[in-house]
């Protein structure tokens, strides 16, 4: 079987899987676009504050 001008299934399957992987990523992102919202906890705020401090020092 030849796909997109490539005879070896070991190659064309990789070619197609790359595209399918990207499509899966897009679909996953869209389906979960509004999911995963979280409350901001004190440890999250502390992390941002410390990160900023460390960046400014360097």
């Amino acid at each position, binding site marked *: 079987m030849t796909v997109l*001008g*490539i005879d070896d299934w*070991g190659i064309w399957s990789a070619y197609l899987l790359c595209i399918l992987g990207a499509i899966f990523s897009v679909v996953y*992102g869209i389906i979960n676009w509004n999911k995963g919202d979280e409350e901001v906890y004190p*440890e999250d705020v502390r992390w941002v504050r410390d990160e*900023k401090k460390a960046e400014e020092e360097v």
Partner: protein
Amino acid sequence: MDNVFILTIVVVVYLLMISYLGYYGYRKTKNALDYLVAGRSVHPFVMALSYGATFISTSAIVGFGGAAAMFGMGLLWLTFLNILMGIIIAFIIFGKRTRKIGHNLDAHTFPELMGRRFQSSFIQGFSGLVIFIFMPLYAAAVLIGAARFIETTFSSQINYNVAILIYTLIICAYVLAGGLKGVMYTDALQGAIMFVGMMILLVMTYTKLGGVVAAHQALGAMAAQVPEKLIAIGHMGWTKMPTLGSNLWWTLVSTIVMGVGIGVLAQPQLAVRFMTVKSNKEINRAVSIGGVFILSMTGIAFVVGALTNVYFFTHPEFGKISMAVAGGNIDKIIPMYINSALPVWFVYVFMLTLLSAAMSTSSSQFHTMGTAIGRDFVERALLRGKYPQYTVLVTRIGIIFGVIATVILGYKLPGSVIAVATAIFFGLCASAFLPSYIGALFWKGMTKAGVIASMLTGFLGTAFWLLFIHQKEAEAMGLCKLIFGKSTLTGFPWTVVDPIVVILPISLVVAFGVSFFTQKLPKEHIEKCFKHV
């Protein structure tokens, strides 16, 4: 093309643009706290492009693109793993827990995350030291990729040695302008430039070669042109996988595809990116952009890399396959193709593409090296947190040493080295850190002893394999010959099997095995680590 004047203008304008954006981003992050509390967050486009630009560098485009010109389109398996491991698994499975556990432990570097998770200064210091010592290898791969392009583009005025210095100066200017802060906006702009540049490259290449199917068929028809020495080690053509179990097959599958494809999960400079987002929502959204971005980077680089053979072979001026045109140095193939096959205006566009790809990765590498030695090794492991006032100084010195080591490697390393150097670093990170990282995120029962044993096994095992078993490195280092009088300790196929295939599973077994029999971490510490997870 020899116009260094235009290069200078292009680079200066580009740096100004990046600096402005860095400043804009800096002002924004000044209010990051309010920003976070106000419930807004970094746009997922910005997060995904920033991650992607840090991940993808000249190593992937120039180095692995050149490798595709030699190995053929089998490298697309690496693109598949880049998307599956580097985006889907890294974001959805690893990213969310890394962010939460990192915040719970107030960890800001990868070694700090591991050290605090397992309550061990040794773990933090050892990880930092491994990163500081070996990351210059990967940083050099990125540097060489950029320098090869500058060298090829301005061949009559700039040689390779000068090109390395030019790129080093550009990266220093960029870092001094604030690039080291890793401001997401600059990374995101660089990611956007990379995306546009690579898309144009793909369309132009397929158009030049008569379309998708015609181009692939033309490449398939060139199987007879494969050099004898490559046929002898398993090469069957550029649109075919190498012979199963052959020398070339093992190199492609174990070193290039698995080494880099799996190693991405334990890349210290990438893991910390997840901590910068506010919630899992941003990570979910970023998956969509990340997948498309990686496809458009390595997918295009590898397809175009393989297809350069059709261009060079059918071109009357060359009439040879890519490797022969590049004089055997595969790192030169992509730069030569861009300069020879594509219009001058695109060479400038591609220059920006590569500059963006290199700078976003280089700056994060130097930042990671600096914090690895300053914050992780010296402050925590060596001084046991007693003199934090010296951390900034040591970090800065660490960055300078990192840059110097990288430049020296850039001069000393041989040709065709970009993909190999990258693969060694990625493989080492996988074997040394991945089992413990998995345990840190997913198994409350993993112990400090288990992690130490696994890290030492992964590190020492990989070093042993590269010095005494894996032919290419063992021969180059010469230690095995010196001690045992022969270049490697074993015969084929082990001499071409990458350490990741053997050492990573051993490191995994050690991590989990030792953890079963050693003292567990205190319950209250585990609860703190996994709070709100």
